[in-house]
């Protein structure tokens, strides 16, 4: 069978097949479903980000409200040391200024 004959056979075979009349409606339904799914996913991401940001702001506010302002202490050698004390963990952090 030559290439030209193969070409004719393929065309003849395919010409017998037409999409069913309901296919366009099926596509519309499937597209609507996919759109809804995308909107739900986007909304879920936005809500998730908002929850994360709110949580981060609350944690920061809590930490700030429970952290003392630094106490400045002058050491005998003349350097000034700032000491922060966390009331959450009671840990102190020292910072030295020249």
């Amino acid at each position, binding site marked *: 069978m030559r290439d030209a004959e193969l070409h004719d056979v*393929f065309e003849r*075979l*395919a010409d*017998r097949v037409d*999409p069913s009349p309901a*296919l*366009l409606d099926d*596509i519309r339904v499937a*597209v609507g479903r*996919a759109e809804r799914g995308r909107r739900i996913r986007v909304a879920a991401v936005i809500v998730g980000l908002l929850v994360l940001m709110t949580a981060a702001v609350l944690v920061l506010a809590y930490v700030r409200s429970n952290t003392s302002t630094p106490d400045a202490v002058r050491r005998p050698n003349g350097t000034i040391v700032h000491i922060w004390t966390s009331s959450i963990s009671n840990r102190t952090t020292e910072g030295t200024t020249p």
Partner: protein
Amino acid sequence: MAGAGRLEDDALAALYRTHAAPLVRMLWLFLGDRAWAEDVAQEAFVRMHMSWRKIADPDRAGGYLRVTALNLARTQLRRLEVSRRHAETPLNDHASAEDTAIERADDARVRAALLQLPERQRACLVLQFFADLSYDDIAATMGISVNSVKTHLQRGRESLRELIGRDDNA
């Protein structure tokens, strides 16, 4: 409008009128089953709709649909082949009695032989003889090199002729 942004319903309908029939026909030749071909075509249209912001050009829709549909069909065919290997049920037994009853004998032989070929050879033959694509376009559609396309086409033609000849002698 079918410009940038969303693909509206009338634009989708216009693209459907232009591309649905050739797409379903190509998929039917490749898969051998009308309902399966329509399912894959439907999924390709949905993906085109969801990716319209990237496509944004009705002239590119045909190519996008063809590539997407063929990739979907090949993936599904591969999955089916794997499950068939486990279940040991025959593959490509899709041609319905109604379909074959109205086929000419030659056409039926070609169709039966085509469905026995490996999926890459089959895809290359369908893209060349039905979709009339060049080697370059077939390579781009299938994501393989032009040399691979030539090899698959050569082997596909030989296998097809051998299978048809075997049927003739039987």
